[in-house]
């Protein structure tokens, strides 16, 4: 039956029957709802107990690789989704999610409480912003001090001779952190200027590795890996995690953030098109945007809540950096150009 309805939708025969809000008002209450998420969507406690208590609906989580793999699978199964709600499409993937019609629109009453920038990225409310953060250059405070080097203040500083052979970045072709950094240089130097910047970075000895883990824990000197390089592309919220959970607990974070290098990331959640329970899925989106749930995000997913009135742990206030004006690129430009940018980057920097 579902198939027939879907085919009808695709053919545009019954345009009204396909939207989430035109279903019969008496949508049955499901026993459970499923959230499709990326692998690292995991919590120390069970965060959905309150939702289950209030609605009687259990929440199940299925994971499906990293955010990119998750979205590709969702695009392949658009209209016949693996769950009811999807968590974790960020602004670099957003445009692809919208054009492959993964979501069905839902306007959450919580929207007014969420970051206005995030909400503005999805005018028809296909998806709801749920968390945010920044990809920024981090530095090893002690290493720079020991070598009498000033903290770099801007992206331009990184091409100066005193920072030769000190920076490690992730490959934008294989790492979302690496892609975010490439995008921050596009935002900063423009569509025609970023190429020269990377040529300069290359002659200044930038090292490119496969992913964040290798960059941060093997090559960067400021974390437990004690690698050789004091500058790394990581997150604005990385420094607090050099304090939290470290025994013995250091007084202050051993690493800092170059604020002018930050690229802004916003993650979205949305109702998956084709769910049998669009109404219930909507209430789950409301829960994901609720104060209670949003306050769990910093220590579980290492991001800032999208909700402006949510509190963050004191270590975030002390050691993390949340730039007032981070760099960004419009999602549609990202989708249109990321392949050619990555190809050009590969030719310029690693070939």
């Amino acid at each position: 039956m579902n198939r027939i309805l879907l085919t009808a939708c695709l053919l545009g025969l019954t345009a009204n029957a396909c939207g989430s809000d035109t279903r019969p008002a008496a949508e049955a209450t499901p026993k459970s709802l499923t959230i499709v998420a990326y692998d690292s969507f995991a919590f120390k406690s069970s965060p959905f107990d309150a939702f289950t208590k209030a609605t009687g609906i259990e929440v199940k989580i299925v994971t499906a690789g990293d955010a990119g793999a998750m979205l590709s699978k969702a695009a392949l199964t658009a209209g016949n989704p693996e769950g009811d709600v999807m968590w974790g499409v960020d602004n670099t993937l957003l445009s692809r999610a919208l054009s492959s019609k993964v979501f069905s629109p839902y306007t959450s009453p919580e929207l007014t409480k969420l970051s206005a920038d995030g909400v503005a990225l999805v005018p028809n409310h296909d998806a709801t912003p749920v968390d945010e953060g920044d990809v920024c250059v981090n530095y090893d405070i002690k290493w720079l001090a020991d070598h009498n080097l000033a903290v770099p203040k801007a992206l331009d500083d990184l091409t100066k001779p005193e920072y030769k052979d000190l920076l490690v970045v992730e490959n934008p072709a294989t790492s979302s952190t690496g892609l975010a950094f490439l995008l921050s240089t596009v935002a900063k130097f423009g569509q025609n200027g970023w190429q020269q910047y990377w040529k300069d970075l290359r002659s200044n000895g930038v090292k490119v590795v496969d992913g964040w883990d290798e960059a941060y824990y093997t090559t960067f000197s400021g974390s437990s890996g004690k690698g050789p390089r004091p500058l790394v592309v990581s997150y604005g919220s990385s420094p607090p995690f050099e304090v939290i959970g470290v025994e013995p607990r250091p007084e202050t974070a051993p690493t800092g953030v170059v604020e002018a290098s930050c690229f802004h990331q916003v993650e979205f959640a949305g109702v998956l098109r084709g769910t049998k329970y669009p109404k219930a899925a909507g209430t789950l989106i409301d829960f994901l945007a609720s104060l209670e749930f949003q306050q769990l995000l910093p220590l579980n997913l290492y991001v800032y809540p999208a909700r402006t009135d949510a509190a963050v742990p004191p270590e975030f206030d002390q050691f993390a950096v949340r730039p007032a004006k981070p760099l960004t690129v419009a999602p549609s430009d990202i989708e249109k150009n990321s392949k050619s940018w990555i190809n050009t980057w590969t030719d310029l920097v690693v070939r």
Partner: protein
Amino acid sequence: MTGLANRLPRRLVAALAAPAVVFIAMFYLWPVASLVAKAVTLDSVRAVLHDRQLRAVLWFTTWQALVSTVATIAIGLIPAWLLARYEFTGRRALTALVTVPFVLPTVVVGAAFLALLPDSLDQSVTAILLAHVFFNVAVVVRGVGGLWEQLPQDLVAAARTLGASPLRAMREVTIPLLAPAIYASASVVYLFTFTSFGVVRLLGGPANPTLEVEIWQRATRLGDVGVAAVLSVAQLLILGIAVIWFSRIQANHLVALGLHPLNERRRARSRRERISVLAICTAIVVAICMPLAALAERSMRTGSGHTLAAWRSVFGGATPSQHPVANGSVANSPVDALGSITTSLRVAIVAMAISLVIGGCAAFAIAALGRSGRVLDTGIMLPLGTSAVTIGFGLILAFDTPPFDWRAAPLLIPLGHALVATPFVVRLLLPTLRSIDPQLRAAAASLGASPIRAWREIDLRFSARPLLTAAGFALAISLGEFGATTFLTRRGRATLPIAIEQLLNRPGALLHAQGFVLATVLATLTIGVIGAVEALRGWSDRRA
């Protein structure tokens, strides 16, 4: 060929082949076909044909695989010879140890390998080749060694008596006799190095992607599943041709031998012999233990200095759900580290059972079918040459409609592992089955044994030991399987390699160290499984 084939009743051969045929059709061919049908358009084919970068990728993939294969065979023959020919204390432990790198996930051991690599080799093709030898030596030791230990010594002895130097006897007698096993191993190593993913990403640096990396990148990072599927099919065709070529030479080198079910290992006699045995053993132990030791070392790095904090937090007893989130504390991990061990063991046992039944039956059928068995043989090898993304995405497309909506079914993961493990079960059994002297069967028949009885008494008896090896391999492969698992939708608990990868990608020294705790556990478990198989084999030797 037919002279070598066993004359089993046709119906029995068909029944033996059936599980493999159904399995491959349902969980491999159909999913891959579904993906191709859904994602591939004329545009994606055109895009592939006109992409200059892709040609470079294909060229690099091909030549690095060839060089890696030759290097692995050349180096692998040394431990294969040592372990098949010499008896010494700790031989079984060493055999187990050699096997471990092959079944550990490269994304995990790659990190340790990276930490040990001299800076000058970092991000070089040499690093890729070294790692390929390291990870694949086991294929040669197992594949060639399995035949070598049953090779009658009298031929070599005769050559020596006739004045051949040990080297000449090796070159002109032993190696030609081993040729089928060498080519069989080479085809597996070639498959694995051609489709290399973790090693290439971690050690090769961004300048040298393989086709497999390119496919993954297109499908997940750029969202171009169509192009990824086209590339995947192209990769399959290339590898299909290679495998057929390998199995043809393998068949040409086939010699029926009077295999001895018992080994003819001996202790090193002369001083020189003893020194070389000791030297090779030391080299093997050092080469394999250093990266493993690096895993253990990194599991103790939590903040300043070395502590056992990560080990305590994994095995401390508290399950994640018992602790409410205390503000400012990440004392316990969001990843259920302890649970992933039991999950992995459970999955591995199911995957082993599936692949032993399917692969075991198929191997007998292939051996009995002779020439036409090659089609089945190649079919079973196909999943090894197909990128994990393609299989993973295909499976969710193929099983997406009720009552077959199995997209998050727990059984899908062991099934995926079985796809990867079954070819090994077949590969480990076939050389022995094919080398059984047909005269033995003729003798059995003339003594009045029915074909089935002869098969039971001869083929089954000779294959007991490779079957045991295959079981251990299947178990270990499933424990370490990473690629296919990442793309299958999972509900709840992660397997060990997945949990490791997740922990390594989280901020915080403690969680990172926990990842290495699990990596150490995985390495230990793998050594344990392979070691147990070796011990069992030893026990069966003594009984026989």
